[in-house]
């Protein structure tokens, strides 16, 4: 039995219906523990005061925003190559979630920036590339909305996602070239294991990140299920209309 079996919408629906409840609970628990631990059980930073606690929302959402686009890239490729509907619909379902994550990262960043840098917004490369990512999300969603035929829409958005990814990477380099920034570098480098955040913050942060990851997966599964049902309704209606 291969993984591709779940590319069948019906099988996918059955599977997702089975795992979703557990996933919701687990994600909810992780997010809740992480956030409560982070907000109430960690000391204030000596320099940043209590504002440091925004990190528990900011970093996980920022990570998920990037990962969501990456996931869309992979599912788009799968659609273009193997033409599994679930894959295209998963990309469609992930886009708004990713966009919302981007907005959360931007909003929490802005809230954080006010006390830290004395301004809501600065044209720092990290921030700027995030804004550009947001624009890509907008364009992607708008293209899905604009096209009537679902398969054509899937094809075109997939092509846009591929080309867009290339240009998103280019933009990132361009933005770094254009302005050196204020934003601090990454301190959770998975590869090296070195880190600059103390354990008090790190453990709840990791829990939050896991929670957000699970939440993202749950949301995408749920929304994909909705999209599948929509397509099913549409397919049945199309036949009904012609049969009459």
């Amino acid at each position: 039995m291969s993984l591709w079996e779940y590319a069948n919408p019906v099988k996918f629906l059955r599977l997702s219906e089975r795992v979703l409840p557990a996933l919701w609970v687990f994600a909810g628990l992780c997010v809740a523990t992480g956030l409560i631990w982070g907000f109430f059980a960690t000391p204030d930073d000596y320099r940043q005061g209590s504002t440091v606690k925004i990190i528990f929302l900011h970093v996980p959402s920022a990570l998920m925003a990037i990962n969501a686009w990456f996931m869309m890239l992979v599912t788009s490729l799968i659609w273009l190559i193997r033409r599994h509907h679930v894959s295209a619909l998963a990309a469609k379902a992930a886009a708004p979630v990713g966009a919302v994550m981007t907005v959360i990262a931007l909003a929490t960043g802005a809230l954080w920036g006010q006390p830290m840098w004395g301004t809501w917004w600065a044209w720092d490369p990290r921030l700027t590339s995030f804004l550009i990512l947001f624009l890509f999300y907008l364009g992607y969603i708008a293209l899905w909305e604009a096209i009537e035929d679902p398969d054509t829409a899937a094809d075109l958005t997939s092509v846009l996602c591929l080309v867009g990814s290339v240009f998103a990477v280019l933009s990132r380099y361009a933005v770094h070239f254009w302005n050196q920034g204020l934003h601090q570098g990454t301190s959770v480098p998975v590869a090296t294991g070195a880190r600059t955040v103390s354990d008090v913050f790190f453990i709840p942060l990791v829990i939050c990140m896991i929670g957000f990851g699970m939440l993202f997966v749950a949301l995408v599964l749920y929304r994909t299920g909705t999209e599948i049902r929509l397509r099913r309704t549409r397919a049945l209606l199309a036949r009904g209309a012609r049969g009459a």
Partner: protein
Amino acid sequence: MIALLLRDLRLALRAGGGFGLGLAFFLILTVLVPFSVGPQSTLLGTIAPGILWLGALLACLLSLDRLLALDFEDGSLDVLATAPIPLEGALAVKGLAHWITTGLPLVVAAPALGVLLNLPGAGYGWLVVSLLLGTPALSMIGVFGAALTVGIKRGGLLLSLLVLPLYVPTLIFGAEAARRGAAGLDPATPLLMLTGLSLGCIALLPFAASAALRMNLR
């Protein structure tokens, strides 16, 4: 191919959509900037290279929706897609025609408009060079965007939405080169990046565009 190029150029001239209009839009936009930000000449001089690049970009953008949509509506695209010339080639030629009718006039006119905005003397040469190297990328990206949205009735605004983020790297390198030139710094690095970008776009985007177009014609 040459027939297609000639036809597109002739149409651009005759439909009154060609050389003149993009330029005029560029001109008006440049004139509107002092109205909106105020007439202080030092301020204008500082923002001049950036505004000129932005204006060129918008003038390109606005002429995109007629790039393929007209051919789509009157059925020419169907015929082109079944014609003996490869669709990739046809789209590349359409990009070229767009550049000749829109990009090139902008490059030529930019110095004149620089005067209106008090562009510092050192900036003129580099502004022209950066536009010359950057506008081909704008045209090719535009062809790709037009191919994506060709099936959508009046996808003009959607087209802008899709294309503008793709324009970001070109704009950054181009405006940076022009700004460095105007400030007397060395613009070589951004110009190199810009050239690379344009070449990459010309080499690869026709394929993406023709794939998108075929999906749309289906």
